[in-house]
């Protein structure tokens, strides 16, 4: 039992930083990120062998942490908490004309379903290629492209409406 615990502590020391960075990126608040990191790792540690596979561990961590933290934002938003208002920071690789108003685009993000949010965050916040998002989420490249196109179309529509 003690060996099990020390192995868990070692894995947490190795992979905890990646979870924490992911949570910090999405939640934009160190306190919330700290709590979310623990909650995410408590989920991850239940499959210890998966955590030990350095080839596949990072996409898995990324997926679980992203879903958890986006869910946290959605719940906080529903409760009207301040944390939900902390805007996501878009990746440098996102062309400036993708969103005329980036902050509005971030607000619009919260109106989409979980899968679309994860795709949009992967591409627009993390600067991932669509192929990379597809691999991480276990979706086809085509599905990722479709969800992203739908998100962008609706986001632009919302932005146009807000300006008119």
């Amino acid at each position, binding site marked *: *039992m*003690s060996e*099990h*615990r*020390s*192995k*868990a*502590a070692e894995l*947490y*020391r*190795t992979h*905890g*930083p*990646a979870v*924490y*960075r*992911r949570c*910090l*990126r999405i939640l934009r608040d*160190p306190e919330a*990120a*700290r*709590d979310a*990191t*623990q909650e995410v*790792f*408590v989920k991850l*540690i*239940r*499959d*210890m062998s998966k955590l030990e596979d*350095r080839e596949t561990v*990072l*996409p898995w961590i*990324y997926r679980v942490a992203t879903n958890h933290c986006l869910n946290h934002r959605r719940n906080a938003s529903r409760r009207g908490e301040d944390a939900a208002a902390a805007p996501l920071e878009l*990746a*440098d*690789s996102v062309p400036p004309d993708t969103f005329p108003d980036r902050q509005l685009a971030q607000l619009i993000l919260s109106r989409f379903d979980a899968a679309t949010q994860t795709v949009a965050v*992967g591409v627009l916040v*993390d*600067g*991932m*290629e669509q192929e*990379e998002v597809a691999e*991480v989420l276990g979706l086809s490249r085509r599905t990722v492209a479709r969800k992203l196109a739908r998100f962008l179309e609706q986001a632009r529509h919302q932005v146009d409406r807000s300006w008119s």
Partner: protein
Amino acid sequence: MTARCPSDLALERHLLSPERSTLTAHLAACPACAARLQTMQRQGEEFLRYVYPATVEAVEAAAASGPSGAVRWLRWLALVPALGAAAALALFLAFPSAPPDDYLGIKGGGALGLTVFVQEGANARPVRDGETVPAGAALRFRVRTARACRLWVLSVDGRGQVSRLYPTQGEGGAVLERTADLPGGALLDGLAGPERVVALCAPEALPWAGAEAAVRAAFPAPGPEPVRRGAVVAGLPAGAAQDAVLLEKRP
């Protein structure tokens, strides 16, 4: 720099296995990515310095509980600020001012006495030594001391799992100067079987590792019977006092 900058995930791969990274050339030539990487490294250090020590216990407990039996020990100090002021006040008002005369949780007139309370609705009821409690019960604790000391509260169960209950953070143990109702609470893990709550209080700071090792040594073999029989925790500093209360968890 014309090549597309790597994603966060690609940078994570680089940090995990730099010797296998294909990003080295890009990072050397792209100041923006080098700066991102530095920020990520700083955040990693922040995790190891502040987040890891405060949360590793919960992760270890989850690992020890296995895939289905989620351990739900709460981080006590984190629980208290989460309560609204009114709710916190109600909880403390419901706390009995003194244990009943026939209460057996504080045994004898020793230098240290531990009282375990089980939350029942809005009230907290003291538990007798060996009493059956719901396997997922919420607990609170009172500790009485005859002199100032450094306190640890731990528990050991039939699987041999030792859990750190109070304080959940820091080294050396909490300073205890008199009888105190400890802040926060804890939830049992929902698994049936005995669980012995142990309070240790030493005249000087007692490192957590020492307290944990002493309790593990007192219960070297997992199994319900050693937990039920109980044992004196040996190897503590001179003048250290101890007390324990046995709970029988029933689903």
